[in-house]
């Protein structure tokens, strides 16, 4: 059971007792691990390896401790902190519209790792790569260190005075103030803002989403009478038709959707069917059972045809439709077959498209089944027309004050010149953002917000699903919460923390009955992180009443196709999204799940198209005078070019500035909403060449049985379908000598390839957990990347319409590990629990083990990436990861590896050991799934299972006895502890 913690600084007597009582004597120290020590205190030799591992950990710990003091002075040692033990605090991740309920792991007062909060009804313990990486941003040296006035450091007092004065003047002269924020889905913040708006009665508040859903919001208002984004229930849909929506990767609430989607990808419990229409080869498209390529401008026509087929069948009514660019008959047939159990979604920001989608869903009876409104999604509320109006006003000098928080229109708005011009005409410009960006460059005052890990807040990402955000560290810099700033300027006397508590007391207390006092309610919610009361009856009925009364005329839909030959399709990359986290080296170095390129964006061109144009990988082309390198992407729709947004930042910090190309100017306003595609007539070859940092350059399995797959039909007939080789090998392979027995635990892992979506969350989780260095673009290009866990992606089938498979590969912890045999200095050997161990301080770096590893999962420290090298002055840290501050993110339980040693996945041995210690302390056996590796814990698809293979009752034992189980390269008889379950594709419905 995890310990759910309250905030650090509150020291009310007695409250600490709520936390699990801890024994503070030696019993609880890590030294207890050396229980093998003899009575007289002399260590037996077998303790050596333990000792070297832990002596490193201890020294890392000690060195970090001094640094921590800078941030959290232990004048009086806080009771809840035991050096060497982690504390977990429930909180919430919010960045723009990204939301996740999380547990923050802290060590000695430093947040070092984010885990998902399994208590959350939304994200259910899952996280995304962006969430995992967000902890690093806390320690970003490029964050604002304090308030700035015209670019020069100032102090809060004078800044506050000046801004208050000027606001007062504006108010007195009836000037106009505008506050721009991203969509705010925090009830208390909404209250703070309305307080602010009340105070400055002429002030206006605009919520601006860089990747806008305003088309959908408007359409929903018309179709459902509610201008909200509904609660999509992928776990209730047997058939999903997605029009370009990358809902497993970046669309709306990917963590939640991945959880729901993968819960329907278990071949033993029935599988859903996903049809994806799209232009780019997205993560979701790569997981689709059927993927149909389309140009974005064809979407309307395709939907009209679908609608026509459905209406014809459901209502017996004929409507006109243009000829369909692709064959939709199968899709409509399937949709009609699963009425009320299907879900049609579209990523388009075109109101007309969304109207059509809504009508289709309505006709199929999906509304109320897979599309719900009682707990609608609150993370996107921005309407593009508001922003458009604002910019017009600014340009006309109608604005006197502009306050921005956490939005970056100077980078993301389609008419950025207009916005920049406009800002210059505004009298008072204030930014409350925490990190530098292109917009902040333009403003007079910067009053930096805390990082979310330093902040108080509450969240209501979905209606009636509340969660709390709490600081887990004292502010590192001289920053102040945005809410405090607003309250200060509007003259309120309270600090936001108190406001929040009061707000919860008054607003939500009544929705629960468990706690009698509002304090107890708040404290307990804080521990759990979430508060999800029952939804009032009145809410559930409201939509159904009025949907049928809304008229719809398909004839009015404009289905004009684009006349341009080529359409550029902008998308959010898995790692960077709209680019908010551009200064995060972990995310920059995360290979894109599909293209496997990191540190860049690029123009994805379909293979046929590339051949026609004579383009090769790495050729630089010019699209409307934006120069981009070409990446030939199998599965890219012919005639489309996919480019990721969020790159080419110019003011976000040393890591993000100048990586990739800024393509936001390619977005445009169409029918009042932003369109994320645009037709172009000409692709200009520049003749220049570019080389990518790509971690996988060969994309075919070469006919090798690496990822084994079968259709659901075949699987249901024979559970070993597609896995016949495994049967053959287990029957024939025998050992030349007595196989080693593992008497106590035998740790193992199972990876379900049917569930894995390839989202790469585990890669970052592993990086964060295990102190894996960032090596920078140049080094990745030299094939020196360090990730312990990688996701192999192979294409099968034709190049133009490939099927995609993902296979997470980490150290396989082979019982007969070829790497162990060849290490000359015994630096890698096998533990009695089946782990392939790596002793860093014994390693001399011959790389023999890596050569002899058939899986190539070992990583070598080619340079001094971590400051732990033996020679000074040779550090290669292109991303500033070794600055004193950034090093606070290091996990003290994991050795920082020095130059010249091999490293690799350890099955998170530090976690295993700590669970063992705990179980020993409590005199009990380890429970199944109690030990979780970083990857298994974080997987939003629940594709990774970790456990003790010796425990017959464990989940892992169940999985390895399944007919789908096989080992990678089992013909080598390495006998890995990592097992894969065959990928079952749904070829049934």
């Amino acid at each position: 059971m995890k310990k759910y913690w309250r905030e650090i600084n509150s020291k009310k007597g007695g409250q600490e007792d709520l936390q699990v009582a801890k024994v503070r004597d030696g019993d609880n120290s890590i030294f207890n691990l050396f229980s093998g020590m003899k009575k007289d205190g002399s260590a037996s030799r077998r303790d050596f390896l333990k000792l070297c591992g832990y002596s490193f950990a201890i020294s890392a710990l000690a060195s970090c401790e001094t640094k921590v003091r800078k941030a959290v002075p232990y004048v009086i040692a806080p009771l809840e902190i035991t050096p060497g033990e982690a504390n977990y605090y429930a909180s919430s991740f919010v960045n723009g519209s990204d939301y996740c309920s999380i547990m923050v792991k802290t060590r000695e007062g430093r947040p070092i790792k984010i885990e998902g909060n399994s208590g959350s009804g939304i994200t259910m313990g899952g996280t995304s790569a962006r969430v995992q990486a967000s902890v690093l941003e806390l320690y970003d040296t490029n964050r604002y260190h304090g308030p700035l006035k015209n670019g020069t450091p100032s102090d809060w007092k004078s800044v506050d005075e000046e801004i208050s004065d000027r606001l007062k003047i504006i108010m007195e002269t009836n000037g106009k103030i505008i506050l721009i924020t991203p969509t705010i889905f925090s009830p208390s913040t909404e209250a703070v803002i309305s307080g602010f708006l009340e105070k400055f009665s002429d002030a206006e508040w605009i919520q601006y989403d860089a990747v806008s859903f305003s088309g959908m919001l408007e359409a929903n208002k018309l179709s459902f009478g509610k201008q909200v984004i509904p609660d999509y229930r992928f776990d209730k849909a047997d058939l999903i038709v997605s029009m370009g929506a990358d809902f497993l990767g970046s669309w709306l609430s990917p963590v939640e959707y991945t959880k729901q989607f993968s819960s329907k990808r278990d071949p033993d419990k029935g599988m859903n069917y996903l049809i994806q229409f799209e232009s780019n080869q997205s993560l979701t498209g790569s997981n689709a059972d059927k993927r149909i390529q389309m140009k974005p401008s064809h979407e309307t026509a395709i939907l009209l045809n679908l609608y026509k087929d459905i209406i014809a069948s459901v209502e017996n009514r004929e409507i006109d439709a243009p000829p369909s660019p692709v064959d939709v008959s199968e899709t409509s047939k399937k949709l009609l077959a699963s009425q009320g159990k299907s879900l049609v979604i579209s990523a388009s920001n075109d109101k007309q498209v969304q109207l059509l989608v809504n009508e289709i869903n309505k006709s199929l009876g999906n509304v109320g089944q897979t599309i719900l409104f009682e707990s609608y999604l609150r993370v996107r509320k921005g309407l593009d027309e508001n922003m458009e109006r604002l910019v017009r006003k600014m340009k006309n000098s109608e604005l006197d004050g502009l306050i921005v928080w956490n939005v970056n229109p100077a980078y993301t708005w389609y008419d950025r010149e207009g916005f920049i011009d406009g800002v210059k005409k505004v009298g008072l410009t204030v930014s409350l953002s925490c990190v530098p960006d292109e917009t902040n460059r333009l403003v007079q005052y910067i009053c930096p917000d805390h990082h979310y890990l330093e902040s108080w807040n509450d969240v209501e990402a979905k209606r009636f699903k509340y969660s709390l955000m709490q600081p887990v560290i004292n502010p590192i810099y001289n920053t102040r919460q945005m809410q405090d700033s607003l309250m200060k300027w509007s003259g309120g006397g309270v600090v936001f923390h108190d406001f929040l508590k009061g707000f919860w007391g008054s607003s939500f207390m009544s929705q629960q009955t468990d706690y009698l006092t509002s304090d107890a309610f708040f404290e307990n919610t804080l521990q759990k992180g979430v508060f999800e009361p029952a939804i009032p009856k009145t809410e559930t009925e409201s939509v159904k009443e009025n949907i049928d009364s809304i008229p719809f005329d398909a004839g009015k839909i404009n289905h004009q196709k684009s006349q341009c030959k080529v359409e550029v399709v902008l998308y959010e990359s898995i790692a960077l999204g709209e680019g908010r986290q551009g200064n995060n080296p972990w995310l920059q170095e995360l290979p894109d799940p599909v293209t496997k390129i990191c540190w860049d964006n690029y123009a994805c061109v379909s293979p046929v198209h590339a051949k026609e144009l004579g383009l090769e990988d790495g050729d630089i082309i010019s699209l409307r005078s934006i120069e981009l390198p070409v990446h030939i992407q199998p599965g890219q729709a012919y005639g489309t070019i996919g480019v990721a947004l969020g790159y080419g930042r110019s003011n976000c910090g040393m890591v993000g500035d100048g990586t990739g190309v800024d393509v936001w100017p390619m977005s445009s306003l169409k029918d009042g909403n932003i369109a994320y595609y645009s037709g172009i007539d000409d692709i200009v070859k520049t003749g220049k060449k570019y080389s990518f940092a790509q971690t996988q350059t060969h994309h075919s399995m070469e006919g090798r049985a690496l990822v084994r797959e079968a259709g659901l039909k075949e699987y249901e007939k024979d559970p070993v379908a597609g896995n016949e080789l495994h049967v053959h090998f287990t029957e024939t392979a025998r050992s030349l000598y007595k196989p080693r027995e593992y008497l106590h635990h035998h740790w193992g892992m199972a990876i379900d390839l049917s569930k894995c979506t390839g989202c790469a969350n585990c890669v970052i989780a592993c990086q964060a957990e295990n102190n894996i260095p960032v090596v920078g673009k140049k080094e990745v290009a030299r094939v020196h990347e360090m990730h312990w866990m990688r996701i192999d992606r192979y294409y099968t089938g034709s190049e133009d319409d490939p099927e995609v498979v993902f296979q997470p590969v980490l150290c396989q912890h082979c019982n007969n590990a070829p790497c162990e045999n060849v290490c000359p200095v015994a630096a890698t050997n096998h533990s009695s629990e089946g782990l392939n161990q790596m002793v860093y301080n014994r390693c001399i770096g011959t790389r023999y083990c890596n050569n002899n590893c058939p899986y190539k999962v070992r990583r070598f420290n080619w340079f001094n990436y971590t400051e732990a090298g033996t020679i000074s002055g040779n550090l290669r840290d292109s991303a500033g990861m070794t600055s004193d501050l950034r090093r606070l993110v290091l996990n003290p339980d994991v050795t920082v590896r020095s130059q010249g040693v091999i490293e690799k996945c350890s099955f998170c041995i530090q976690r295993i050991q700590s669970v063992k210690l705990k179980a020993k302390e409590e005199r009990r056996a380890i429970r199944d799934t109690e030990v979780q590796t970083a990857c298994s814990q974080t997987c939003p698809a629940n594709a990774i299972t970790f456990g003790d293979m010796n425990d017959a009752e464990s989940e892992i034992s169940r999985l390895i006895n399944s007919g789908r189980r096989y080992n990678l390269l089992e013909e080598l008889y390495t006998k890995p502890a990592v097992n894969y379950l065959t990928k079952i594709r749904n070829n049934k419905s």
Partner: protein
Amino acid sequence: MENINYISVSFDDEIPLLEAVGKLKESNEKILDVLTPFPVHGLDRALSMKRSRIPLIGFIFGAFGAIVGFGFQTWVFTINYPLVFGGKPFFSAPSFIPITFECTVLFAALGMVSAMLIKSKLKPDSKFIPFDENITNDKFIILISAEDVESARNRIKLTLSGINIIAIK
């Protein structure tokens, strides 16, 4: 050699030398030593030299090396610090063979060479004065023990008459 009376007979080729040795042996002269610039084929037989026991020393050292090599590895892997490598048994004998072999050769080689140097009393000696500087060039010398140098010289001259001698001293 200072205490022993001897006669030296020198030659400029090994054929008369061998002949002379044969004759001297026949006439029961006591040959102290024969000094040659290169190993003369058949000289050891002519001098009825006993075959050196260096091969035996080599064998003993080699056997010792083999036991040490194999034994040490076995001790380390099974008793002193057993570790699991690649699922192989602790006593992974085939793996021990290469090092055992190398130890055998190393011990045998060093043993034999040391034995040779010790037995021949060859050692670094900056004060060494050779018997004749041309022995290492083109001169062959027989040293014969003689109680009475003068009479022996004549006797030997007689014995070796007809053989191409450079000098008798």
